[in-house]
């Protein structure tokens, strides 16, 4: 992983490094109780992992826990989200009308899809957006000039821009990862700082319905690959050819409401 130190907000007082290097002080993960740590361990992987995630639409209850914990884990400022829950239906909390007049409602948790063929990475003029060794799409804020070409190129609309001085619900934020400078683009990192500690991303760890499964897509016997195989997973905007590493497990049955 390239050495990508991110400017640290002086107020947080916690020196942080987006690559999750141990060069920093105590990692926030170290502070977790042992039981929580064990619960969040990634487990099996191949020698050269290609991280991916499955989101089970059947299990998702649309509670936004993953979206909220993502904000605190990554210090996402007010007005911005790296991870949010879309509603396939009429509105946020009103069901839509499906086929044959049945009411229908389901949730699509949406964050960076970490595409294998990422349009954002291709168009970045400075290479600030890059694909790391474990195939995660990351942003090196130091090289970001803020042209927002990646935002125009992203079919999923998951990137957010630092429009002004960030504001946090808690002064200085939580300080788990470094603050991003004004005028740069940021997005979900798949909690790369947690992966470095052998912990699953925060959204996976926090999901009360166990709707998210994190793992190595190149580990043919892993839990993730087995799940994808048995459930017939789909990806968002498959026809755009971006080959996302976030897969959606479609509901096996639809009950008329």
């Amino acid at each position: 992983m390239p050495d990508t130190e991110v400017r640290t907000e002086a107020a947080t007082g916690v020196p942080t490094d987006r690559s999750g290097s141990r060069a920093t002080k105590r990692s926030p993960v170290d502070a977790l109780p042992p039981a929580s740590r064990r619960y969040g361990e990634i487990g099996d992987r191949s020698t050269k992992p290609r991280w991916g995630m499955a989101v089970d639409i059947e299990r998702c209850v649309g509670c936004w826990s993953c979206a909220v914990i993502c904000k605190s884990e990554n210090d996402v400022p007010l007005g911005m989200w790296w991870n949010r829950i879309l509603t396939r239906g009429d509105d946020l909390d009103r069901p839509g009308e499906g086929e044959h007049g049945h009411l229908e409602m389901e949730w699509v948790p949406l964050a960076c899809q970490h595409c294998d063929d990422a349009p954002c990475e291709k168009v970045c003029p400075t290479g600030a957006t890059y694909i790391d060794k474990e195939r995660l799409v990351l942003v090196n804020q130091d090289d970001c000039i803020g042209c927002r070409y990646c935002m125009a190129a992203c079919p999923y609309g998951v990137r957010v821009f630092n429009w002004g001085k960030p504001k946090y619900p808690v002064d200085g934020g939580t300080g788990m990862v470094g603050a991003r400078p004004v005028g740069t683009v940021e997005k979900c990192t798949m909690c790369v700082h947690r992966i470095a500690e052998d912990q699953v991303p925060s959204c996976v760890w926090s999901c009360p319905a166990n709707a998210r499964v994190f793992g190595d897509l190149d580990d043919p016997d892993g839990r993730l690959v087995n799940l994808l195989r048995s459930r017939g997973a789909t990806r968002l905007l498959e026809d755009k050819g971006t080959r996302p590493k976030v897969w959606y497990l479609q509901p096996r049955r639809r009950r008329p409401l």
Partner: protein
Amino acid sequence: MTSIAADPAVALRAEGPSTAWKAWVGVLGAALGLGAFCFAYQWANGLGVTGLSNTVTWGMYIISFMFLVGASAGGLIVVAGSELVDSERFASLNRLAVLVSGAAILTATGTILPDLGRPQMAWKMIAHPHWTSPLMWDMVVILVYLSIAAVDLWILTRPTVSGSALRRMAVITLPVAILVHSVTAWIFGLLVARPFWNTALLAPMFITSALVSGTALVVVIAHVVERTTGIRFGDEHTLGDLGKLIVWFIAVDAFLLGTEILTIYASRVPDHLDQLNVILWGRLAPVFWAEVALGVVVPFLILVRPALRARRAWLLTACSLAIVGVFFKRVNILLSSMFEPLVGLAPGIPGGRPGQAFRPDEIYIPTWVEWGILIGMAGFFFTVVTIGVRRIVLDRTADAAAPDPVPAGGA
């Protein structure tokens, strides 16, 4: 120095600054000052002071960039094209056209800076170039293009302009001028995320629009130069002949737009159709139909009639409308794709500022900061043109156009 009055360039300087001239310099200075203030304000506060958001990430700056690169390429393509076919018809306009092109491309480069979140980091594009990005290609081709415009100007301002050198330059200028706007189109046209941009027709459409706006801009500026300095470009038909060319450009431009719309509308691919509907019947419909009426129908009907385009008032009206029409076209192209994200489920894309959680029905209204910077950019463009006209166009055109043997180099 008996012939001093016959040389308008000299006459202009001999008269001393007129009230109109002082007012013009004042306007330019005010525009530049306003632009500088707004840019500084935006730089200090972040791009949050603009009307942009995470949904509409590009706005007036990029629209102006597209427009200016087009206006720049268009004028130069006409000049280089006529040189290539050995036509002397627009030779008198050479210097002015190259000057306007150079000024427009300089200004276009300038409009990129305020669009950057961190203009102070722009050097990273040179330090860490990432060559798969069309933005990098555009930077290179713009630099080449600027150099060519400079060399062109240098050749055109030699005491004896060599026709063969001009033609040789035209061989390079024409493809680069076409390329500079094509690459600008590919910045947008190569994105799978934006179906309305993602068409092979985008670059040809950019070129035809560029020919309309670039030629029209040369006509308007040539007229103003003629009126304010008393010099003449060619004979009384020269500008009208450019108007005749614009008729063709408008027709081809409208044809390409029409075929694009028909293809989307008849094949009804949902993503494409959604973005098209935004301009046909949706939130951008007023701008689109204004583009069609003011930018295509009216100028075409005026310019297609020889009697009308021979009259300055009609010619200028048509050209000004065509320029506005092309600007509206850029607005429509850019915003229609921005207004309709591919994943458009509720609650939408985060607004980006505190208090703006989500904005599913994103609308883009430029703020005073954006207008201020644009006025500053216009000021910059006209400052370059004004200085260029006084330094480059006046002296030489006067020499070349003067029918009687006026001693050259009166200044």
